[in-house]
């Protein structure tokens, strides 16, 4: 038998006067006001201009958990959700397996509801976890040091370019045109009033010897590995730094940037155990060479000892930061996106040496299988040459919007539209989450859609 519950009724005045998140009763309030020495709350806010006090709000009355959770679940259910649909979207955010350990640790309120570890004695859990995060990032990229995390990948990339300008005391930033344009847009927003010139260059273009850095994405927008060593060599020959915006998963398989002498590595940390969540919250990864640590933006956790000689961890090199240096800080950032860093730390610990290799290999195998099958379909082609990891550009015989609309009807979320770069082209991403059955379904669907062209 089905019972229906009427959620529409307003709560009675008895239940609405005491909110579950606010413990003070009327008696508590009366007692405290009396101890303060006032008769009414209003006496405490006499500094607020009277005519502006207690404005009208258009917000509804409090919604109890039972009905509110049903309302919000209904909103969530209106979305087309990967998992229900086969999904081949990538381009900056990637759908990966998240082991159960990550969410289990994410339930620890001791991590979730702590704040920035300004009192290190009372925050060793957060600090040691952050140190694990920094260590893991250094090891994945083979870099000397990493900070505790940035907002997201693109802001880390922008901050890296600004850091290169500070280190070289130059103001020209060369960015390869194979990078996602969103990286360049964020860099533009970050540098617009800092007298910095952004030059977009092709991979084989000559660079002038007054640039601060060559910044590029590898794997690039098209999923293809750049010549990291060659570009780094050219940057160094110009007295500039090399900045690579990497994908951490790729380095379960491919040589890490540190191997090629890269100066700064940035990346989107989301692929390492963080749900897609419509684009956030994510964490930006930022690693560099030891010699540049005093120009690093963001929080850094260091190992030290207490007065009894025991190992402990604390925020360090804080004289770079805004709360000390104010307008002369290396950045205005005052977060490390620590909780997402925790997810990354647990993910890397869980996957470990073999697991990250396995994930990278599965991505490579499945993406290459998909690419080789789709390339056989008449009318479709792979327009970009080079070694790719888990994404590839696919030129379609019809406009991408039409292809994706037809795919959606077949339960498939298609690729990311890059027709502004290459006509009628989308970017297909395949990860370990895509079964062979899903890939085969995509191939069959594309054959059918292409045939209708």
């Amino acid at each position: 038998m089905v019972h229906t519950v009427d959620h529409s009724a307003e709560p009675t005045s008895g239940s609405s006067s005491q909110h579950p998140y606010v413990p003070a009763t009327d008696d508590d309030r009366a007692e405290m006001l009396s101890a303060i020495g006032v008769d009414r709350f209003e006496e405490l806010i006499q500094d607020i201009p009277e005519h502006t006090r207690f404005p009208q709000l258009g917000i509804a009355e409090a919604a109890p958990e039972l009905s509110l959770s049903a309302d919000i679940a209904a909103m969530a259910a209106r979305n087309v959700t990967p998992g229900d649909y086969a999904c081949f979207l990538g381009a900056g955010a990637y759908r990966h397996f998240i082991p159960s350990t990550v969410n289990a640790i994410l339930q620890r309120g001791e991590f979730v509801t702590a704040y920035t570890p300004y009192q290190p004695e009372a925050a060793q859990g957060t600090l040691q976890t952050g140190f694990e995060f920094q260590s893991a990032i250094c090891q994945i990229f083979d870099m000397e040091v990493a900070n505790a995390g940035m907002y997201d990948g693109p802001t880390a990339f922008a901050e890296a370019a600004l850091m290169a300008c500070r280190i070289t005391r130059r103001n020209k930033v060369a960015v390869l045109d194979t990078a996602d344009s969103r990286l360049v847009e964020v860099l533009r927003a970050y540098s617009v009033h800092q007298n910095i010139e952004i030059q977009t260059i092709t991979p084989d273009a000559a660079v002038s010897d007054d640039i601060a850095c060559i910044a590029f994405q590898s794997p690039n927008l098209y999923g293809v590995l750049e010549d990291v060593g060659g570009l780094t060599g050219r940057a160094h020959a110009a007295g500039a730094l090399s900045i690579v915006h990497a994908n951490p998963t790729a380095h379960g398989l491919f040589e890490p940037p540190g191997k090629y002498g890269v100066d700064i590595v940035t990346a989107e940390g989301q692929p390492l155990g963080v749900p897609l969540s419509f684009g956030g919250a994510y964490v930006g990864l930022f690693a560099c060479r030891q010699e540049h640590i005093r120009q690093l933006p963001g929080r850094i956790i260091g190992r030290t000892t207490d007065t009894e000689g025991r190992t402990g961890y604390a925020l360090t090199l804080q004289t770079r930061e805004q709360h000390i240096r104010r307008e002369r800080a290396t950045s205005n950032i005052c977060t490390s996106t620590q909780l997402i860093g925790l997810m990354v730390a647990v993910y890397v610990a869980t996957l470990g040496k073999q697991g990250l290799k396995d994930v990278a290999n599965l991505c490579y195998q499945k993406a290459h299988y998909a690419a080789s099958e789709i390339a056989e379909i008449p009318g479709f082609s792979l327009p970009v040459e080079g070694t790719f990891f888990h994404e590839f550009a696919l030129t379609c015989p019809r406009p991408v919007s039409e292809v994706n609309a037809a795919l959606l009807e077949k339960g498939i979320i298609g690729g990311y539209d890059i027709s502004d770069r290459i006509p009628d082209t989308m970017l297909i991403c395949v990860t370990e989450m895509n079964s062979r059955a899903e890939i085969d379904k995509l191939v069959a669907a594309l054959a059918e859609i292409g045939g209708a062209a």
Partner: protein
Amino acid sequence: MTTSNTANELDRRLLMDRSVPGRTAVTLPPSDVPEQDMPQESLLRDDLPLPEVSQLEVIRYFSLLSQLNFSIDTNFYPLGSCTMKYNPKLNDAMASLPGFAGIHPNQPSDQVQGAVQLMHELQELLGDLTGLPGVSLAPLAGAQGEYAGLLIARAYHASRNDSARTVALIPDSAHGTNPASAAMAGLEVVTVPSASDGNVDVNALRDLADERTAVFMLTLPSTLGLFEPSILEITQIVHDAGGLVYADGANLNALLGIAKLGDLGFDICHSNLHKTFSTPHGGGGPGSGPVMVTDELAKFLPEPVATRNGDSYTLSEPESSIGKINGFHGSFGILVRAYTYIRAMGRDGLKSAAENAIINANYIQSQLKDSFDLAADRYCMHETVLSASRQKKRGVKGLDIAKRLLDHGIHAPTMYFPLIVDEALMVEPTETESKETLDHFIEVMRQIDDEITSDPETVQTAPHTLPVTRLDEAAAARKPYLRWQG
């Protein structure tokens, strides 16, 4: 929090030092596609130095680490300016719904109507609460919201061919992010002094505001926990000089349903959702710092902005947008939490949050003013700034008192901020703490004050019951040790 004195025996080894070759915490399925050609050998990595540990070890390691933390869930956390209020569990549950946690940021709006609708409704709610109806949820933290707000101010002046406005006026009591953000936005920072009563020195502001003023950045209530009584005059002075007024919304919790920033003459503000709107601080992020502006400035907002057309919702770029300040659409998971909170609180609940936050702070202030000096001896808003200057004369610093509180299971207040107060201890109890908790805190503070006379050394060397004693932070900075070393 483990308070027993077992720290000596506690196994603090790092994961790499626990690693045993061959162990694993998870297995991946074998490939189900025909084997593909691998790329040339020289591109492939031969060694990946990551830990090899069992699944139990992962869980036990991080679970034990979590117990070394103070947190809102386990401790009273009166950290001023941070609004460490209860983070409702429903918020997390809603953000974890597959229809939210599982959607891809590159899906077009027509596939994610529920998500974009939620963003649109949250924009409306924040616009209503602040009286500034133009809203972008894009900024990923308060500091990014500030930066976006300053770019908007610059874009506004540029649109009026008034580009000589390159000065940001900032009070000496401001958060460090204000001048840091202004510098990033290419503005020259000019400091506005505070008067002796803790308010903005209005005469000084009148002298400083001129044709070079781009923006005046003001935290309201101030970092002293005070409402500026001359606020209408202040915003008028800046407007008369042709500048805009920016509100740092760090302390917005005190104003919910009490006053709207737009009504007070502010043009731009940001709100830290992780403070006022109860989203978790996460040990230092992720935050979220939506930026709110007047109708006139809405066309400059960063992208995206959620717009509504009938029953259909779209993410779009405002006409003269300052552009893209991060990869996607903001901290969506945090936005879901804040939205859930606002609806759970409702109109009267939000107002009662502000009222009770203000009453709680004044209650603490009234009960401690005999033992501690006050930065300003008048009613405060949601936080009170105590000064340990009296205690310093007895040989004990504010820092020592903060550390001694930890021994009592209470997180320290914000120390030495604002910079203009000697030995500042900024206490923000929030509305979610009960009177019993406040009474306990008051009693402990008085006890520590007594202890400064009876046994100062115990206070000076605190904490004594935590996993570590005071750390050598100078050595950490001198010889940076920033990662596992094999």
